[in-house]
């Protein structure tokens, strides 16, 4: 029935929608046509423009140009509330629930039932129970606080909350990623019923089998534009991956050395590392001189893995060995000590990497204060010497060592963050997406630097959302999916096709089996 050509006009149409964030083009003339009573899937790799598209529809960001037509009338939303009023409701990937309020309060948050001006708690309770029932989660107590619920239950509350708003267009942005298999099955029943009821559903997921089960048609996004729309069942998984590929290479990478084998214990060895439900049984090694990339879609546990290694997480199980000796860093302070020698270049340089109002010199010495001070007093001469060396080494462009770090350009700020950790002379360097939001020139300098550090004997573990970097920089790449290593790619095996298909957790069994590392 859903295969039939729609006779009605589309409920929602986006035409030529564009959006830039500063110099970055997120959407470039994207088109999308959505019909009532059908489920429409949206596909694309990291940074293809999916989330921007959804944010525009949900009223979170305003487009720079283009039209949105709802029921034949052009609309524009200046807030999520406005989008909701028009009947467009989005279930976001980052939960939009309020932790300190009860489930019922949350479900009715935007428009609670009122009597004599006050919230009618009994009516609200009924509404919440109804919505939970409709969402297939009648087991959740309406009076429980959201913060006391596990993640998968919260996601169900999120779905119930969206349903309680009586949407006409429902957007599910990775809404199933936090759910257990049993919940996914229930949600699918609900989604199919909503489709019968005439809702238009936009379904964003990276799970190909979910899309195959639900969607009547899919649109693939690449480089901020829709590249193809196809009816369900007309394309194979491989063809879909083919459509998602096609980024132009814009970076120049330093040559990789030939693979070397030595008998020594690997500098970093991780065995069966697990943490809550976010990291599952991760094992890998990183030899001295090797750049190991972490790939996969955003939020599959890469960040947690780096934090776990660096001693930030509590209750990590499994084994970490540095140069053969088991270690268990209990804090970043312990992890950076000489015996372990680890450094983590964090994801968000503005909050986790730099003290923006403080000087470049102070920022550079923070991690290495032990090295530049004698008897608890900072040795100014020694500090200036080391700081000067770092500024020369990384070619940091600054008005002087006393200029505030915040006055530097993004690329130079990132260099300061990296240099700060090089001051402690680490042997294991963990990087969390170090090139995000910086200019191409600085990116290339960072690639060269990473390779030089590796050649000097460091082991580098490098998480990046940019597939080009995994291909160009890394000797090996681990692809994470749902907190576990799905695939290990070595040398020439690291291709865009292999990265995308394993990030989406598809690909032929044989291919996967051949390429998987020694453990799991």
């Amino acid at each position: 029935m859903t295969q039939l050509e729609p006779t009605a006009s589309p409920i929602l149409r986006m035409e030529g929608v564009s959006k830039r964030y500063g110099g970055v083009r997120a959407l470039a003339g994207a088109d999308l046509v959505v019909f009532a009573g059908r489920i429409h899937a949206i596909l694309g790799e990291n940074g293809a423009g999916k989330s921007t598209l959804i944010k525009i529809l949900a009223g979170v960001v305003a487009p720079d140009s283009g039209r949105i037509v709802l029921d034949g009338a052009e609309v524009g939303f200046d807030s999520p509330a406005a989008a909701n009023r028009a009947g467009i409701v989005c279930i976001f990937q980052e939960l939009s629930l309020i932790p300190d309020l009860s489930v019922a309060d949350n479900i009715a948050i935007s428009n609670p039932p009122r009597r004599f001006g006050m919230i009618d708690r009994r009516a609200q309770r009924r509404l919440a129970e109804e919505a939970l029932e409709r969402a297939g989660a009648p087991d959740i107590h309406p009076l429980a606080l959201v913060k006391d619920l596990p993640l998968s239950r919260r996601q169900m509350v999120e779905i119930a909350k969206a349903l309680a708003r009586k949407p006409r267009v429902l957007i599910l942005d990775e809404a199933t990623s936090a759910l257990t298999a049993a919940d996914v099955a229930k949600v699918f029943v609900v989604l199919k019923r909503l489709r019968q009821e005439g809702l238009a559903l936009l379904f964003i997921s990276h799970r190909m089998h979910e899309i195959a089960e639900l969607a009547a048609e899919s649109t693939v996004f690449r480089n901020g534009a829709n590249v193809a729309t196809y009816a369900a069942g007309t394309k194979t998984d491989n063809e879909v991956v083919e459509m998602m590929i096609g980024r132009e290479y814009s970076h120049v990478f330093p040559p990789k050395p030939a693979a070397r084998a030595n008998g020594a214990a690997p500098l970093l060895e991780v065995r069966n590392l697990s943490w809550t439900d976010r990291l599952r049984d991760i094992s890998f090694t990183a030899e001295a001189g090797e750049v190991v990339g972490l790939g996969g879609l955003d939020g599959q546990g890469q960040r947690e893995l780096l934090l776990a290694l660096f001693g930030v997480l509590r209750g990590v199980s499994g084994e970490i060995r540095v140069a053969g000796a088991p270690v268990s860093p209990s804090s970043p302070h312990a992890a950076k000590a000489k015996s372990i020698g680890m450094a983590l270049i964090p994801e968000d340089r503005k909050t986790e990497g730099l003290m923006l109002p403080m000087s470049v010199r102070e920022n550079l010495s923070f991690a290495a204060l032990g090295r530049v001070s004698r008897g608890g007093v900072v040795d100014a001469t020694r500090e200036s010497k080391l700081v000067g060396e770092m500024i020369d080494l990384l070619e940091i462009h600054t008005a002087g060592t006393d200029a505030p770090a915040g006055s530097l350009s993004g690329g130079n700020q990132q260099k300061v963050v990296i240099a700060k950790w090089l001051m402690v002379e680490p042997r294991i360097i963990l990087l969390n997406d170090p090139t995000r939001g910086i200019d191409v020139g600085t990116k290339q300098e960072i690639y060269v630097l990473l390779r030089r550090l590796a050649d000097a004997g460091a082991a580098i573990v490098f998480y990046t959302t940019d597939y080009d970097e995994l291909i160009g920089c890394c000797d090996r790449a681990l692809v994470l999916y749902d907190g576990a290593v799905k695939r290990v790619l070595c040398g020439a095996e690291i291709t865009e096709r292999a990265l995308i298909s394993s990030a989406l957790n598809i690909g032929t069994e044989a291919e996967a089996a051949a390429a998987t590392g020694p453990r799991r």
Partner: protein
Amino acid sequence: MSDWRYRLAQNRGTLLAFVFFVVMFAIYSSNHPAGFSANVVQTAANKGVLLALVAMAQTFVVITAGIDLSVGMVFVLTNCLASWIVVGTATTAALGVVGVLLTGLACGAINGLIVIYGRLQPIVATIASGAVFFGVALLLRPIPGGDVYGPLADAVTGRIFDVAPASLAALVVVVLVLWVPYRRSAIGRAAYAVGSSETAAYMSGVPVGAAKFCAYLLSGLAASLAGLFLTFVTYSGEASAANGGSYTLFSIAAVVLGGVSLFGGSGSAIGAIFGALMFRTIGDLMFVFNLDPLWQPLFQGLVLLAAVCVGSARLFQVRNRLELFP
């Protein structure tokens, strides 16, 4: 079925404050030379209600994850104003009361506008506005003095049927008229949402600005009620910097003791009221046990520290150390 268990868990802070207060007050009155008499209760009530009202004012703002360091100054300002205008005949006094409350609302509105539209941090905004309010109070009453409409003052600070203290009854009325409807209104719900997670509240289409503004407005109103009540107790107005400062700080202590989270999003003004009464009872307890009043700040501090420690016990469960830093 298990509704009551959820309700109990969510009001634990309020209930704990209530239980602690009852225990402390029982110890106090059973050791008081005059026993549990109407007089003892009335004196305790008049002292307690002042702080309870200021603590209530603080609660409105703290729930939105803000803080109002001007509550004590609004309290002092409205006291000075009341000592000028709540005088004369019953009619003029009634108009005066309205004027005092409107002044409180205006102070709250100023704070709200600065915080919401000026995008200043509440702590800075209210330190500054508090200083302004105190300046106006000094202009009104350079030296302590003034008067108040006697019959009203006596009625509010006296006893009902010669047993129950009228001030407590007045406090209950304030709670019923101000807090209970607020707690159950959509705008009150929005205030909790904003305090718990402003981003999630915004993404859910909650009126974030209106909720904050309303919280500051009600904070000003509650503080002016306290100022009015102070005038009834003292029969005069005084621009006392000491009063303004200590009531501000004590209101924060009372809020914490009452189980209101300084991170916002949870707690109740009723808890804060019992927190305030508890805080006041500490001093009374020292009196009946013949301890030097010089020890009072020390004991108040220890009680506060203990309460804060209990409140932060959940930090032991945090699995990602980055979450330890708010």
